[in-house]
């Protein structure tokens, strides 16, 4: 029986679900000391990664993660033909300088912290569409470069509100191909820009929760599924505040996520001992958690089906200073055991 490709209002079902054949995660020291520390492929002790600046350090992380993911894919997987990658820095400089040496055609993406969701669904569409046998989905973030761009210099003294999140230093990479591996991308729901009018860039969980709710609920409606059809629905970096709000908003739309919701931002750090407040954030937050924690559980069959929903806050220092609100976006990818 042929499976519909276009599903509902905004979703995609893949006829021959492309596989995630390998994944790589590289993180900084603080992430390595967190609850998931032992699961990451590499922990980079030097915040500068041997480079001269935060931005170059982030690029180096991308390069390492990409290389490692392709290496882990092994010789049985066809060569990677295209690269989908993005980061948080202005004009995607971490990506463009990081992937240059890979010598792969690049699609540069900006989805704020939701980038890996966007990259994975585009990768799956490219493979499913027959435009490539294998593609690489990649993203990164770095605490130093993000703070410098969005907030204050690192040495500036100040207090972070309890709703603030901590940008994850790291990079996650995934090789998506026609076959191989024990996890596949069976569907996707690209998200819309959702704006509930909040202007507090230090409470990004509350800014992004409406977008996460919109994408998750649209996804469930499009596919005619219930939250219980998934082992877990895992958002990217809503943090503890966004988690509370998501449950509330989804409840209003008739979906009880209480039993099913996890958040990468809440899993990657121990907020009690690591002083990260509401949780982790950044493009790498969801990417490295997927690579190191979620994917192995799906591959082993412990989890059969997961809805992976990285979330992004769409702001720049210019939009913020000019008084604009902080809209959110969330992209959902269905990952199944196979």
């Amino acid at each position, binding site marked *: 029986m042929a499976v519909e490709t276009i599903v509902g209002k905004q979703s995609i079902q893949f006829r021959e679900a492309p596989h995630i054949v390998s994944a790589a995660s590289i993180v900084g020291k603080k992430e390595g000391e967190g609850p998931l520390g032992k699961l990451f492929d590499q922990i980079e002790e030097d915040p500068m990664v041997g480079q*001269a*600046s935060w931005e170059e350090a982030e690029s180096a992380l991308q390069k390492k993660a990409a290389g490692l993911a392709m290496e882990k894919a092994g010789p049985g997987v066809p060569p990677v033909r295209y690269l989908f990658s993005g980061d948080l820095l202005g004009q995607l400089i971490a990506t463009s300088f990081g992937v240059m040496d890979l010598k792969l055609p690049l699609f540069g993406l900006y989805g704020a912290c939701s980038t890996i969701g966007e990259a994975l669904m585009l990768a799956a569409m490219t493979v499913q569409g027959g435009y490539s046998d294998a593609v690489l989905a990649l993203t990164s973030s770095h605490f130093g470069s993000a703070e*410098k761009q969005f907030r*204050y*210099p*690192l*040495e*500036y*003294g*100040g*207090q*972070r*509100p*309890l*709703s603030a999140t901590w940008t994850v230093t790291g990079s996650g990479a995934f090789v998506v191909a026609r076959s191989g591996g024990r996890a596949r991308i069976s569907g996707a729901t690209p998200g*819309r*820009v*959702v*704006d*509930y*009018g*909040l202007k*507090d860039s230090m*409470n990004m969980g*509350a800014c992004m929760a*409406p977008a996460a*709710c*919109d994408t998750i*609920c*649209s996804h469930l409606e499009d596919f005619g599924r219930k939250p219980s059809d998934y082992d877990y629905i895992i958002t990217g970096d809503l943090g503890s*505040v966004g988690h*509370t*709000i998501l449950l*509330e*908003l989804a409840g*209003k*739309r*008739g979906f009880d996520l209480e039993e099913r919701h996890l958040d990468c931002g809440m899993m990657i750090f121990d907020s009690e001992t690591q002083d990260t407040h509401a949780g982790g954030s950044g493009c790498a937050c969801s990417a490295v958690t997927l690579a190191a924690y979620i994917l192995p559980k799906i591959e082993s069959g412990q989890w059969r089906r997961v809805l992976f929903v990285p979330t992004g806050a769409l702001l720049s220092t210019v939009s913020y200073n000019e008084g604009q609100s902080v809209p959110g976006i969330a992209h959902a990818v269905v990952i199944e055991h196979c």
Partner: protein
Amino acid sequence: MKEFQERGQSGAAPSGQNQAGFQGEADVQLSDQEKQQYGEYVKQVTPAHSLGMQMIKAFVTGGAICCIGQGILNYAGSLGLDKDTAGAWCSLLLVLLSVVLTGLNIFPGIAKWGGAGALVPITGFANSVAAPAIEYQKEGQVFGIGCKIFTIAGPVILYGIFTSWLLGLIYWVLKLTGVV
């Protein structure tokens, strides 16, 4: 949260459309009133630092910095310096101390604990100049340090000077008119 639920369900929002938006009509934007309601709800579920504790910490930190300042002042006075010169030495040494502690990445920890207690005295001002100098040094002497050293302190300097000019002007007018 309770209040938010009640509002959403009982229709305290005047128009049905607003209420529907809140009930979860798949809408990417809210009306102004719903935005305000969402903002209030978010405020309720967002934890905040305890104000009392913060004030005590700020008092202790600010007090400690002022005690160091007073110590410098008294010592300089005991060496025979007049009040103004001793005051200048006091500011100079506190600024130096703050810049050195910023360079050693110790100051951010003090400010995190002590809040405004560390930031309001001259030590905070010194930190706000030293921190960008360190961060932007990589972008060069001119476009890095030169252009960006006052990104945080700039507004304080500009409006500080402007306010003192304004007060001077008022004082001058009052003097001309014989009020003072």
